[in-house]
């Protein structure tokens, strides 16, 4: 829609672009979201409703009301009903203020409401805009199903003379080569999508030999980072093959997004019109989405930094949504001072500790992070006593944390898996670094205790009956001493375990497998509790929310799902990626989820709405690792291209590029204070990066922030603080202990 706004002055473009119904991720995603919500009304109303009420923030309520109004206007009565039930709105909730005072209790939120009230109108217009896409989407969703592939592909039929394709293409090529340097880089972006679509058209219309000749002639011109796709493309020479090929379907169904400055675009358009080159013009209109911006054309390096994804760059407006990247306020916990070690400390320690604690708590609540979502935007589980104890442990450990920096690098402990003939495929550590879990290609999940404390099962039901339930150490008594061992094996999956994640309270373990299930294991009984079935294809990754209860999974079916442990069906389905979702990660505030994909993009999703709020492009290979910085502001991503990219979530900007690895990066982790980023790779190294410097060095002015055209410095070598080599052991997992000791894990290849 930004493109629409950008094209206002140019009436032609506006109509050109508007005619095509939106089929990009946004539309799909809304469609899916709607489908899910309506698909499970029972569960939503019974268990979800009260939670949802708590979760609805004032501004979201505004949005909901706007959506309701829109639906009503379009006579979608059923949808209105369902949505209202889902959202837990009263039947006649005309006055938003009334409900919101009940929903939002905190004083700070009131200010936000007032603020939001100012641009309700703009918000409304936005909502109507996006929901129009949503309304159209259902029909589109049907069209996407396999039997209707023909419909999709048929767009390629009845085109011009196949022999002229080469002429058209080389004509354009000649033209672009002759334009001014500043425009050439921008217009060169057109080559790749044009090339692909022209080739596909030739193939679809059974001009096999022409297609081959065309490919031979021009495939060499394409950017090297499209090599992978070109290889797939070159294998495809028959119309029949096109039907089953997902990559091509993606290419066809999604519009390739290009960002071009207005001047360059005018140049291109004029040229094509002069030459009556309708063939190319049609393709541009049908299959390309040109995001026009005003201002300086971008340089080649700027373009290269952002391109490389399967479907071009992200539209600018895709990254405009506000993201509440701030951290949630930590619950107030009275630090109990009756601990033995505390007692042993000097007397004056007590009052000292108490006072600053209270002060800091007070100040914290006062200066609520303006970028943080409201505390109950997403309903979060209440803290249990054990969680509080763990929080206290965490605070204690945090005081002993080593402050890392460029002159103070962390020590590394390497956990080598021995005798792992069956193939280690996933590793996770608990937050307190007391347990390590491995997922193996032989479908097993194994858990080891890293501390001297052995793993014990809970006693059998019969034995549990004999226990004195009133005793203080009942939690200790329920454990069966006889089962104590250093490791436990859990069987249940029927395929390699590709993802594994501990729950924050260390009572559960999640594993995702090739068999299409995500399993929840109890670490008290070491048995499987639930198998979540929803993905029908391999599930590549899963992760628990930092607050527990929720978890996300993503896999070969190109959708990420948000689950709650007590629901056997997903709560949200995040759809929009054009290829497998290879890794999933929760934002520290649990309100967002990031997914990396084989389509070489990263998307950030809003857990509350299910919307995609950020699309990051720039990687040249499938993304295999993601990490949020502890303050929630930044995201780091690593891919098979061996590069780590840094992203500013708030602005939706690329912040830096860290080059150095020579193979796939399977693990990324920020130090506990966020100063250092550790990356572990197949090239048998762990590298440490000075990310604070990377973030500080980047100068952003308003223009770059507005357009997202960041000019990156090539300073990887300065930022690289250290390269730690292993002895032929690919690093597949990294973890910083609470005291900032770096733990790495892998299987030796010797």
């Amino acid at each position, binding site marked *: 829609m930004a493109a629409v706004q950008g094209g206002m002055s140019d009436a032609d473009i506006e109509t050109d672009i508007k005619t095509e119904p939106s089929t990009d991720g946004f539309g799909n995603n809304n469609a899916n979201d709607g489908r899910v919500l309506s698909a499970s009304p029972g569960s939503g109303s019974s268990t979800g409703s009260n939670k949802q009420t708590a979760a609805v923030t004032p501004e979201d309520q505004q949005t909901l009301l706007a959506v309701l109004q829109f639906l009503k206007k379009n006579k979608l009565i059923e949808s209105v009903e369902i949505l209202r039930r889902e959202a837990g709105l009263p039947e006649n909730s005309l006055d938003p203020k009334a409900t919101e005072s009940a929903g939002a209790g905190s004083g700070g939120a009131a200010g936000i409401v007032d603020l939001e009230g100012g641009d309700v109108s703009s918000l409304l217009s936005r909502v109507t805009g996006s929901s129009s896409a949503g309304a159209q989407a259902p029909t589109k969703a049907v069209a996407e199903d396999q039997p209707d592939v023909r419909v999709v592909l048929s767009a390629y039929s009845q085109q011009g003379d196949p022999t002229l394709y080469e002429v058209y293409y080389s004509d354009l090529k000649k033209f672009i080569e002759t334009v001014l340097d500043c425009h050439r880089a921008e217009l060169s972006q057109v080559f790749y999508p044009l090339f692909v679509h022209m080739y596909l058209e030739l193939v679809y219309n059974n001009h096999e030999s022409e297609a081959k000749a065309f490919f031979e002639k021009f495939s060499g011109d394409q950017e090297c980072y499209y090599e992978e796709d070109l290889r*797939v493309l*070159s*294998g*495809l*020479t*028959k119309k*029949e*093959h096109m039907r*089953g*090929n997902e990559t091509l379907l993606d290419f066809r169904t999604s519009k390739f997004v290009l960002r071009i400055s207005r001047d360059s675009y005018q140049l291109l358009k004029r040229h094509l019109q002069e030459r009556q080159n309708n063939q190319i013009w049609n393709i541009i209109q049908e299959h390309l989405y040109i995001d026009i911006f005003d201002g300086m054309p971008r340089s080649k390096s700027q373009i290269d930094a952002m391109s490389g994804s399967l479907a071009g760059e992200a539209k600018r407006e895709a990254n405009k949504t506000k993201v509440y990247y701030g951290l949630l306020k930590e619950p107030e916990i009275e630090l109990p001072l009756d601990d033995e070690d505390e007692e042993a400390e000097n007397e004056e320690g007590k009052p000292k500790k108490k006072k600053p604690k209270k002060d800091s708590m007070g100040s914290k609540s006062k200066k609520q992070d303006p970028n943080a979502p409201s505390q109950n935007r997403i309903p979060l589980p209440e803290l249990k006593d054990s969680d509080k104890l763990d929080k206290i442990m965490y605070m204690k450990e945090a005081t002993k944390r080593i402050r890392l920096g460029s002159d*103070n*690098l*962390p*020590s*590394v*402990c*390497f*956990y*080598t*898996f*021995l*005798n*792992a*003939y*069956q*193939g*280690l*495929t996933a590793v996770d550590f608990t937050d307190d670094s007391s347990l*390590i879990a*491995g997922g*193996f*290609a032989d479908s097993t999940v*194994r858990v*080891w205790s*890293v501390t001297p404390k052995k793993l014990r099962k809970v006693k059998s039901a019969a034995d549990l009956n004999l226990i004195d339930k009133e005793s203080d150490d009942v939690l200790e008594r329920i454990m069966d001493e006889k089962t104590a061992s250093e*490791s436990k094996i859990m069987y249940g999956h029927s*395929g*390699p375990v*590709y993802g594994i994640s501990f729950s924050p309270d260390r009572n559960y373990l999640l594993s995702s497998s*090739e068999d299409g299930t995500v399993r929840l294991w109890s670490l008290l009984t070491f048995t499987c509790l639930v198998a979540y079935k929803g993905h029908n*294809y*391999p599930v*590549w990754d899963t992760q628990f929310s930092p607050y527990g209860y929720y978890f996300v999974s993503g896999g*070969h079916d190109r959708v990420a799902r948000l689950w709650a442990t007590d629901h056997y069906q997903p709560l949200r389905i995040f759809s929009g990626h054009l290829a*497998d979702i*290879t890794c999933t990660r929760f934002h520290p505030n649990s309100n967002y989820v990031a997914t990396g994909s*084989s389509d070489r993009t990263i998307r950030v999703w809003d857990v509350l709405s299910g919307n995609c709020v950020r699309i990051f492009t720039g990687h040249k290979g*499938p993304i*295999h690792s993601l990490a949020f910085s502890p303050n929630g502001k930044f995201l780091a991503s690593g891919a*098979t291209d061996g590069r780590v990219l840094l992203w500013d979530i708030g602005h939706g900007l690329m912040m830096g590029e860290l080059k150095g690895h020579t193979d*796939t990066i399977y693990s990324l982790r920020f130090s506990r204070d966020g100063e250092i980023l550790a990356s572990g790779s*197949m090239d048998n190294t762990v590298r440490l990066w000075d990310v604070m410097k990377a973030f500080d060095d980047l100068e952003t002015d308003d223009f770059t922030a507005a357009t997202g055209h960041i000019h990156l410095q090539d300073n990887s070598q300065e930022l690289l603080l*250290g*390269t*730690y*080599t*292993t*002895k032929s052991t690919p690093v*597949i997992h990294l973890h910083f202990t609470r005291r900032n000791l770096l733990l*790495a894990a892998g299987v030796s290849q010797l």
Partner: protein
Amino acid sequence: MADREERRFAEVSRESVRLMAEGAGVELGDDVAALLAEDVCYRLREATQSSSQFMRHAKRRKLTVEDFNRALRWSNVEAICGYGAQDALPFRSVKEGELFFVEDRDVNLVELALATNIPKGCAETMVRVNVSYLDGKGNLEPQGTVPTAVQSLSDDLLKYYQQITRAILGEDPHLMKVALLDLQSNSKIAALLPYFVYVISGVKSVSHDLEQLNRLMHMVKSLVQNPYLYLGSYVRSLVSSVMYCILEPLAASINPLNDHWTLRDYAALLLSHIFWTHGDLVSGLYHQIVLSLQKVLSDPVRPLCSHYGAVVGLHALGWKAVERVLFPHLPAYWANLQAVLDDYSVSNAQVKADGHKVYGAILVAVERLLKMKALSLSQSAEGHSGAHPGSVVGAASYRVNSPGLSPPPEPLSEAALGIASHLQVGGAGCHWEEWTPVPLPAMYCELYSFFGDSLAVRFSTGPGFGTHSPCTPSQLSNSRKEPPGPASNLDTTRKMPQLTANLNISPRQDGSPRTDPPPPTTRGAPIYLSGLSREVFPKARFTSPQTTPPAFSFLIGGRQMGQRCQGRRPFQTMFATTPPVSAVPPRTYAHKLPVIGRVGKPVRRWTCSHYSLHLPL
């Protein structure tokens, strides 16, 4: 198309398709076969592409059959069984039919089922943790393995490191010589120095293996001699390894058959060499070494072999060290040694033999001390006689002239001195403070009281010294005439051939290290030392080391006194002369000394130009 010239992928030809169809009993037309072949190719490529995804998620680099099968399964194609083996499958051809196939032998299931060698379950999967990097620095690997960080070196260097260490520590003596020679002359191994030093520091773990210790010491020598290496602070590490070999009661010395004495001698030689050539790299090293030697010597609990090491170590550091540490300590030590030597019980036999070794070492050391002292005194006397004709040679005189300076030589020469200056600077041991030089005659008397007739000093000079030296050729011939009988009547079981070896330990003539090259005159009569003489003499000494060939040899014949008389032991050593010595003929005490000795076969000699540190291998 199958008949296309250039091929982007491996393709299944239409002939193959037709053959396979025939195998299944179907006749195919050309066009059908071509279409099928192309489709098969495409499907194979597709499956391969999606199988690579399984490989990536399994975090592997190698695509397995299993990955491919998964891809097939997910695209609703039957998986291919029977190819899951880890090893490569043999591919065979039948010439007649031009057929190629994968060998697929029959498996006798009955045999397999009844087989007795049931494979044991493989070892349990486990996790092992090790600290890889501490505070950003690499952890040292256990002995014998390549340090992790070596892998960051270039491949060539790494290979060199492995080859060299393997050659030196390996079995082949010839290979070892070659390796040592290269280590000594290679100009590009600076980056490996830490690793070699680290390897050498492994002496402690091989203290049971004389052979390995020897090899490591040779490695030290090669490194020290390599002119391209800047040892820097690694000197300290090397010295501590060498000191370990000199002083420690090595596990190897438990067996009396092990010739650890040679090792100690050699290490001492090495110590002095390191010290002369690289002593200036680490400040205070000389002092530290001397102190630790002194500590060992004064510790009666230490075994005699350690004491022996201390003595040869001091001897190797120069006569000044002997004078300062050994000589003052001798009365106290003598009692202990005497007790050992006087014990004739059978159980003591071994200890007594060791005692004799120490005795011999001390004797050699003090004799050189006497000789050098005499030499320096005479030099100073002659060198400055013109300026101070009336000066009296001796400690008493300079004590008078420089009352404020308790260790007189150093303060004057401090500016020029590198290490010797630390003698009093780092004076942790009060011993230094108390030390006052003993005049030569007194020293001689005292020593004579210990050693009796065994103590003998004789200077044999070259032709240039003839007129000055009281040690005439006739005396030499006299000694030569003496029958070798007494020497050979030693207790044969306690023969100590090593004694001659330790006589090799006669580094340069002066008593201070490389950066301390003041003329010998400073020692005897520092009072006469002026800036001028300091400059003149070193130059004279070092500019023409080879031009003055005459060497004087130092003959020691000895017989123990008193009832412990065991006959004579021949001692001999030869010294390369230092030029100033040749310029200034020594006035010696030799004529006063009883000469009991004989000229034996010349032992390996130390030369200035080439330090023959090679021990017989």
